[in-house]
Structures are given as C-alpha cells and as structure tokens.
C-alpha cells in the first residue's frame, strides 16, 4: 500500500527583495494512512511553513510531494488535505453566524442539507445552538472544535493540525485531543500534528520528528525542545 503522503527533498524559501530566505531545507518524510505524525521544534524553525506547503497555501520552491500516489504540483485547494489553524478566532468570519459559515463550506463540498454538520456536532459533543452564535460568543475551545468540524466536512484523508491547542488551557486541550483521537478512527483520517509541547506530542502522536533550522531530525536525536 503506497504511503498517504511522500515528501522528497522539499524546499521552500521566502523571497525578501533579491534575497531568498531558505526556510525548508530538503525535507524528506512519509506518512501512512490513519497515522499521527508529529512535527516538533522551537518557534521560527519552519513548522508552520511546512504545514502551509503541505496544505497548498504556499508553493514549494523545490522537491516533490505525492499525496495518495498522485503528484501535487500546484497550490490549488486540495480537498483531501485540510488544515486547522492555531488561532480559531482568526479563522472564522467575525460577522457571520457560525451556522452560516459552516453551511457555506458544507455546500462547497456537496452536502445539500445540515445532516453532515449535525452528525459532526454530535461526534464533537457540541450542541446545535452554537450554530446560531457569532464567533465572539464562543470560547476558544468551542471555536477550535468547530474548526475541526469545518475541516472534516471535506472528508479529508489528511488533516494538518498547526498547534491547535497551544492557545488553550490544559483541560480544554485534553478534551479536544480526546475528540481528535476518536474522530481519527471514525473518519479514517491521518494527522500531521505540529506542536512545541513534548509531553503532548508523546501522548498524541504515533511518531514524531524534530525540526531545527528548517531541517528534520529523527526523534532519537531530540534533545530538549
């Protein structure tokens, strides 16, 4: 069975005038179906840039990526790869009720009624009434659950979690991570989990890689993160 995601010699640089700042330096790794792969490292090491390149928000400047056996060439939206961001408040339209935001995405992915949203709300232990609220009326934990819900509407095979709980307290973090663990088997989804919390990484991921200065190292080589 081919790997879900294969990255070979992946490079990315931010252009600053005539200067190119190389952020990802020849990264190579594979992910299997339904796997939780962790990427850990200090701030500024390139973790979020890697997430954006894999998620198609940035175009790699070198190397190759294959997803489910097909080559990924363009930064065009990839239905099979979805992303949950660090700050849920900034990822929802503040003037639109959450139900309207979610229905828009559901429609985009071919769900004509609310059944899919209601099913996911139940899986995430949330009540229907949150759909009538504005983002400012919910807590960070509730909004992050809805971010997960929104990304699962596309029925992805890979979900990129870019520090999804770093702005949340430990009890909300535990609750969201437990929900993600349950959803992984229900929706047969793999997670690329980015975090700088070693204790959380060891709890949640199947294996993890350490990133430093744009390069990946095996977890055996990890010192303190």
């Amino acid at each position, binding site marked *: 069975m081919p790997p879900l995601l294969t990255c070979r010699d992946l490079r990315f640089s931010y252009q600053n005038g005539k200067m190119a700042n190389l952020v990802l330096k020849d990264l190579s790794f594979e992910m299997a179906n339904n796997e939780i792969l962790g990427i850990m490292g200090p*701030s500024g090491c390139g973790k979020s840039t890697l997430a954006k390149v894999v998620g198609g928000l940035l175009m790699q400047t070198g190397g190759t990526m294959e997803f489910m056996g097909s080559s990924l060439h363009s930064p065009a939206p990839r239905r099979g790869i979805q992303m949950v961001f660090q700050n849920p408040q900034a990822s929802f339209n503040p003037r639109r009720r959450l139900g309207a935001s979610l229905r828009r995405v559901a429609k985009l992915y071919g769900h004509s009624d609310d059944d899919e949203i209601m099913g996911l709300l139940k899986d995430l232990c949330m009540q229907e009434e949150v759909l009538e609220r504005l983002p400012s009326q919910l807590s960070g934990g509730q909004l992050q659950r809805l971010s997960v819900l929104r990304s699962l509407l596309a029925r992805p095979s890979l979900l990129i979690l870019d520090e999804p709980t770093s702005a949340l307290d430990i009890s909300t973090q535990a609750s969201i991570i437990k929900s993600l663990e349950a959803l992984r088997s229900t929706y047969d989804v793999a997670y690329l989990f980015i975090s700088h919390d070693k204790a959380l990484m060891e709890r949640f991921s199947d294996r993890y890689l350490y990133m430093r200065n744009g390069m990946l190292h095996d977890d055996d080589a990890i010192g303190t993160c």
Partner: protein
Amino acid sequence: MNCSVDALSVTFSIGSARVKAASDVSFSIKDEALALVGETGCGKSVVAHAMMGVLPSNAEVRGTMDLDGTRCELSYGRYPRHVRGRSISLLMQNPLLSMDPLMKVGDHIIEALNRGQRGDTKKDRKVALEELAEIGFEDPKKIYSSYPHELSGGMIQRAALCVATAQSPDMLIADEPTKSLDAKTAQDTIAMLVNRKQHGIRSMLVITHDLSLVETLCEKVAVMYCGKIVEMGDVRDVFEDPHHPYTRDFLHSHPLKEFSAIPGMTPSMVDVPKGCAYHPRCRIADMPCTTDSPQMKERTGRHVRCHRY
C-alpha cells in the same frame, strides 16, 4: 508588598444580558507569588484588569484592594490611578498586541518611566538601556531602536517586562506570560520572572495554565472556576493533594498526568448552573451541590469551596 483583594465581583452588561465574570474573589499576597489558574474564560484576566482599574465602562466592579495598608476602591471612576505602574503593574497577555506597532521599544520604556509624559530623554535613554541590558539583551542599543514586530516572541516578552517594570513596582501581575511560547522561550521567560522576583519585585500575581511556571515561580495557587476561586493553598500541597473535585480533574488533564478530559463542557457565563457551578461535571456531586452555592471553608491554610469538603 502586602496586597489583598476583598470580595471582588465584576459584572458586564452586554445588551440585555448580564455576565458575572468574577464573584466573591478574595485573596492576599504577602511578599510572595500567587498563581491564578483555571480554564479559559473563567475570569482570571478579569481579576487582573480589575486590580489595574482598566476594565471597560460596561463592567460593574465591586470590592476593594489593599496595598500595604492603603485601601483602594476598584469600582469604575474611583480607582486610584497613581498606584498604577509604581505600586502595581501589569505584564499583558500577548506582548506584541499590547505594544504600539509605530513606537520603538525604547520609546515604550521611556513613556512608562514618565507616566506618559515627555521627560529628560538623555537621562531616560540611559535608564532604558540599563533596563534592557539588565534583562539580558546583549545589544540593548539595537533593541532600544527596534520596532516590536522586529523582535522574536521571547525578545518581545522581555522587552514588555522592561516596560511593565520601568517604574520598579512593588507588585507585578503577569497575565499568561508563557502562553504560545515554545518550550525554550518559555523557560527563558520563567527564569527572567524568577530573577525579577529575587531582585526588586516583592509580590507577583501570575495568571497562567502553565503548571511548570506555577511550580517554579509561585508559593501559593488559587484555582478559579466560573468566576469564583474554588481552592487556594500552597502550591505543593494543592498539586500533590487537591481537595476540590475541579482542581483534581483540572490537574489530571495535564499531558504529564492522566491526560483525562473533564466530562461535559464549561458552562456559559451567561447561564451559570445553580448551586455549585461545577456540579453538572462533578463526579461526587450530591443534593446540596445542585441547589446551594458552597461557601469557602478554611482548614490548616487550605481554602476550599465545596460542600463535600
């Protein structure tokens, strides 16, 4: 510095709704560091902002604060502004957002030194550079001339601490000082706060959910749930033997412990459950818990707000 807060309550009026964000909050800090921990939205930052007198006008604040024998009214319009910065100062959550993006770091420190007024810039510049060097910057002149966005997360946190402590306050309130920082930067920030506590700042109120910060920096801890302190005591005692069911569940949710999620959801502050606010999620809730609000009980230095204690 001896600081005590007595019966602080804060209610926000939002449209027709009234949200009680803090209720009957009392504690005292005597030349030590007290940590205020709890879930997001439980009212920790509201307590800090009430103590600084910086809540918006739709907040109805009741209660008093005592600073070394000086009684301060915390209600809107009666807050003694002269204590701000000199007696008590606030290190804001998210330092990048708390700084003016169009002002250089040095100007922030000078503004804090002069309480918003222009002063002797040459002398102030010298003081500001000394502050930046003391906090560990190798090139203070470069930091002095930098804009906030030009600094990394750890550097901006250190610069913000320089601004907060520019007037050498006796007490510092640090609101989530390690939030969203990576482990190395968080460790540096904790070391910086420990250093400040040993040299100059006598008392601290640390708002956090970073338990390693609490263990390293604080002597006492108060646990908040739905706007009320539910347990308070020495850090080691509370962490090793929590008495309130919420404290127990909260501590067990840490990845280094059981990593178990608390059942149910945090209630909305608009519609707080009757009786003990924690009873719908509590594993040992009984009859009085659903109807009567528990009072704080004290035994051998431990304060617990639970009917079962």
